[in-house]
């Protein structure tokens, strides 16, 4: 995953550079803080790519790989249909409706979200 690593490392470096240049051009705390947080987030991702993905050997990264090479590979489990995602979204909708116009709804919405997450988790097992 060399390309992915390079992507995040160069993004993080750019983030640090622009935050520094911005601070010295403007002495503005608001913007520097935002750029600094951005640089920190990118650094986190770059660090993760370095440490955790070092051993990744993806068939997609081998330019000369053929379909035969990938035969029998288990990609993962892909669901086809489940009602819990729309339920969770609906619950979030009720929470935010509650915050916007009718506070008691927010609790009901939270309950729906938690219930949806719980069933989603059970489905994964």
């Amino acid at each position, binding site marked *: *995953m060399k*390309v*992915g690593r390079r*992507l995040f490392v*160069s*993004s993080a470096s*750019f*983030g640090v550079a*622009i935050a520094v*240049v*911005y601070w010295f*051009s*403007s002495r*503005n705390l*608001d*913007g520097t803080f*935002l*750029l600094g947080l*951005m640089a920190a*987030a*990118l650094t986190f991702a770059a660090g993760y790519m370095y440490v955790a993905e070092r051993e990744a050997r*993806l*068939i*997609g*990264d*081998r*330019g*000369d*790989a*053929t*379909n035969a*090479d*990938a035969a029998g590979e288990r*990609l*993962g489990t*892909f*669901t*086809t*249909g*489940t*009602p*819990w*995602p*729309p339920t*969770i*979204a*609906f619950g*979030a*909708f009720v929470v*935010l*409706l509650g*915050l*916007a*116009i009718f506070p008691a709804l927010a609790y009901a919405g939270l309950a729906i979200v938690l219930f949806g997450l719980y069933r*989603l988790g059970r489905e994964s097992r």
Partner: protein
Amino acid sequence: MTTATAPSPRSDPARRGIVEWLTSTDHKHVGTLYMCTSVFYFLVAGALAMVIRAQLSQPEMTLVGPHQYNEVFTLHGTAMIFLFVVPFALGLGNYLIPLQIGAPDMAFPRLNAVTYWLFFFGGLTVFSGVLVNGGAAATGWTAFAPLSGIKIATGGGQDLWIAGLLMTSVSGIFTAVNFITTTFLYRAPGMTMWRLPIFTWEMIATSLMILMAFPSLAAVLAMLYIDRHLGGQFFQAGAGGNPILYQHLFWFFGHPEVYIMILPYFGVISEIIPVFSRKPVFGYTGLVLSAFAIAGLSMGVWAHHMFTTGVVANLFFSGVSFLIAVPTGIKFFNWIGTMWKGSIVFATPMLFAIGFMLNFLIGGISGVMVASPPIDFNAEDSYFLVAHFHYVLGGGSLFAIFAAIYFWFPKVFGKMLSERLGKWVFGLLFVGFNATFFVMHFLGDMGMPRRVYTYAPLPGWGTLNLIASVGAAIMAIGVLLFAYDVVTTFFSRRYAGADPWGGYTLEWWTSSPPPEFNFTSLPPIRSERPVFDAKHPELARPKG
């Protein structure tokens, strides 16, 4: 598969029941839902635009009162930006990315479904503002504090706006996570990162921007809510707060947002122009690197929306804004290089792609002009600015959306839209669009501010506004013709095969529409156009 017959019922999405659609996690269903919902909001926002243009067609008209007008342009902007241009791109990405990289689905299919339903409910929430006391939000799509504070925007409409956009923000962030993870991890054998289609690369750059920018929007929305209802003083002067803080946070999101609204469409153009020039894309590396240059630089220009506040580092933001023109120009020259010495086919997708280039060029030039603070001091918040951003978003993104629809509709629905009607749609939209928005450059120079429900009968203002309104009517006819095209296509027998255009990327290898889990076979992948290589082995050379 090259025969063009009716697809078998099992793989035809139009035949499935509603429950299947409500519970599906298939990226093709999610993508289709995104795109159809966003086009619905386009029609709504377009109708709102017609109200605006009717009201402004002549001075001192009274079709709508000031408060209704303010709601209309707020919902127009909010819907076009948050509920149409961005979700359509995310839907297109959802549909195409797994196909283009040779994967069976997204990395997180259930999370994917959540993101669509958050968008669905978020849009409903924003518009439900019309049902509450005081009406929908009426503070512009930017909702600057203190105007959007509780003392002035007293109704629930503003809170519903906040709530709806919090939902769409979270939706976008999760989509970006899905896009990056899927592209990094699920590429087919031989599909190295440097062989990815340009559209997929642009979606990665877009996803990076979403991850960096959307949290800022979520934060400013939450802070606005706290100011409004929980005794916060973030944006109130005189209590330790600062209205400028709102603008910093909003535009730190708002500027990358506009690049989020264009980069996917740069990708669309980069897919369409090579196919209809019958050549590979020119300058692949430059296109990829410029996407990330734009993404990175876009995070550092936010206060060019704040030049007139007098309290930001104008020269820093001006300088970085000029820099962004360079990678954008590189893309333009790469597209020209693709067409150069090619063999151009004027199919409808290509017409829209050419229209995109012509329009976006004008929008880009006016953008470079307002990147210079002395010019911006006059042009900011005038119709010159309205002209600029409509040229890049309307003339740019909207035209690319039509190009994408005419190009990929056969893949998604298995039938070809009408080439004959498509050319008329293009013509009406191109003429109407330019008639509407070109004159706005002059109106801005002549002193017409934006977000005004009426204007005085000054010399020339009525005529130019009338031209703009007539242009809008022409566009509306074009859109209606497009709707007619879509509806009649569903009843037609113009079945598309797997590859009606002579496409290059993997989505054109599989049937139209693709089966569940996308592929029953894959060609060898040795370049950025594996389908072309498989069909034209004599022309397939890894280095050209």
